[in-house]
């Protein structure tokens, strides 16, 4: 063992302090305060006698409306994840296997371009595509395929389309890394032994890319359930998800305690996802060390 790696904090280690302070003051403290607020009857700064209460959580648990909101959020997240996986996988596979450097760079640009376009702008783009007088309905009408515009927006379908577009790059980038690490000779060996390319893919590449599928899906799900702009605009203010409800509790009702309780529910779901994601990524990097 070289003495350089002795487990003693050196002077460079002190450089952690500014960022640690930022996280302590602007991340852990506020989230701790949110947890406290979620079990108080009111704002302790302006009200002298606040008590500890479970009423905010009881309200979420007892009212089927709020449970329905949570389920809608999760359902939209699941659909978004599934569709993002189905359309992200082929593209990630192509990116990982393409031989030409220019081809790879162009694909990368195509995947990154939407990421660089801002959520509001992309949601606006989908509004122009999906609305009753939008691009898709105008084209279909002028082709004589439909007489009445298709209801593509102001429902969960529209939300899922918009969210898939926003989060599929995360799926592609996660999957590309994992697929790129799979030894291509394994597929070639399977094909040399008589497997069709499809069967070689199903029995060799797909199982080996499972950690990437899991990590990408967890990431997209976590992002999709916390989305605000896309569900509110493409849902036309008619579909209620957890983030929309949280903001509404602040902006319309100024009910900080209840918003905090809803926030804690979203935080609990997200923390579970983050732990699962880190665990899966740990598996992937463990695999890399074995190779």
């Amino acid at each position, binding site marked *: 063992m070289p003495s350089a790696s002795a487990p003693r904090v050196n002077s460079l280690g002190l450089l952690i302090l*500014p960022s640690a302070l930022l996280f302590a003051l602007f991340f852990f403290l506020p989230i701790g305060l949110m947890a406290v607020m979620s079990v108080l009857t009111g704002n302790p700064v302006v009200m002298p006698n606040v008590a500890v209460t479970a009423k905010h959580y009881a309200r979420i648990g007892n009212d089927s409306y709020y449970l329905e909101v949570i389920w809608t959020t999760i359902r939209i997240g699941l659909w978004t994840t599934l569709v993002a996986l189905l359309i992200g996988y082929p*593209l990630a596979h192509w990116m990982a296997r393409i031989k030409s450097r220019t081809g790879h760079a162009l694909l990368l640009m195509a995947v990154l*371009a*939407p990421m660089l376009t801002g959520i509001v702008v992309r949601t606006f783009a989908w509004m122009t595509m999906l609305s009753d007088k939008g691009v898709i309905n105008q084209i279909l009408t002028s082709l004589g395929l439909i007489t009445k515009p298709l209801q593509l927006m102001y429902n969960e379908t529209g939300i899922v389309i918009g969210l898939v577009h926003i989060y599929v790059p995360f799926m592609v980038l996660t999957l590309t890394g994992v697929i790129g690490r799979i030894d291509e000779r394994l597929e070639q060996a399977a094909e040399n032994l008589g497997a069709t390319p499809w069967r070689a893919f199903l029995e060799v590449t797909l199982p080996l890319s499972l950690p990437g599928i899991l990590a990408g899906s967890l990431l997209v799900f976590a992002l999709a359930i916390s989305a605000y702009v896309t569900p509110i605009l493409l849902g036309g203010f008619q579909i209620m998800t957890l983030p929309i409800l949280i903001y509404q509790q602040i902006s319309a009702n100024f009910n900080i305690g209840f918003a905090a309780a809803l*926030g804690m529910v979203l935080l609990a779901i997200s923390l579970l996802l983050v732990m699962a994601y880190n665990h899966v990524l740990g598996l992937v990097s463990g695999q890399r060390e074995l190779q």
Partner: protein
Amino acid sequence: MTSLAPQSRSDLAAPVDLTTAPATRRKAPPRRWGRTLYLAANIAILAFLLAPIAIVIVFALNPTPFIQFPPVGVSLRWFEKFFASRDFMHALVFSLEVAVMTTIAATVLGASGALAIARGNLPGARLIVATMLSPLMLPAILTGLALFQSYVLLDVGRPVWGLVAGHTLVTIPYVIRTTLAVLHNFDTRLEEAAQNLGASPGRTFFEVTLPLVKPGVLAGAIFAFIVSFDQFPVSLFLVAPGSETLPITLFNYLKFDLDGTIGAASVVSILLAFIVVIALDRTVGLRSYVKL
């Protein structure tokens, strides 16, 4: 022996007959079909990814105040309206200011944090990294909500530093990740060599470590700028009425109006992002920094 020889010959012969001859006859067409299907599916997916951006550009140049497809002409009236609008210009300038302040804060804090993690022999370094990357996966809307509540409880109002702090929190993971990637990849023996040749730790840091990590830090800084410029959920809770960032202003406009001004604003922000990315690609190269 004599009984084994013919048997093994037939063993050898049988698979050859079964695999090579019929397989090539059977396999060739599906392989070409499969390849075509694969490329067609991927091109459709690329179209899905890029079509909305193309539509926005078309819509920004389209002279009619409503969506019309195919477009009827080219005009710059929406760009004129965008640049003439005080609200939009104020928001654009404010967004740029916030993005610059955020980039500086996130870069300084993130790069020093990454250095400490990689070179400081910190106990629990893995946990520290996971914590500092967690704002990427935890809903940004929660960061916004938690900060908003804290500012209300502390009665500080909605100051600009509060907004910048929120943005810094959600952009710092990018800087940490790109800087750590560089620090993990380069050879620590370079630093050891410098010290063996008599350089002080400080001199080693400034003359060896810092120049080598610069590309990673720069890449992280550019990511931080773009993410801050487009940031929505944290800003939603933390902007003060009257001084909103561009995404918030666009969102508020979108709630009531769907005309080409939004298209023009979108094109401007797309162009800004692309200029930044091309700068990134020219200076440090994109490829190694976008792996998740």
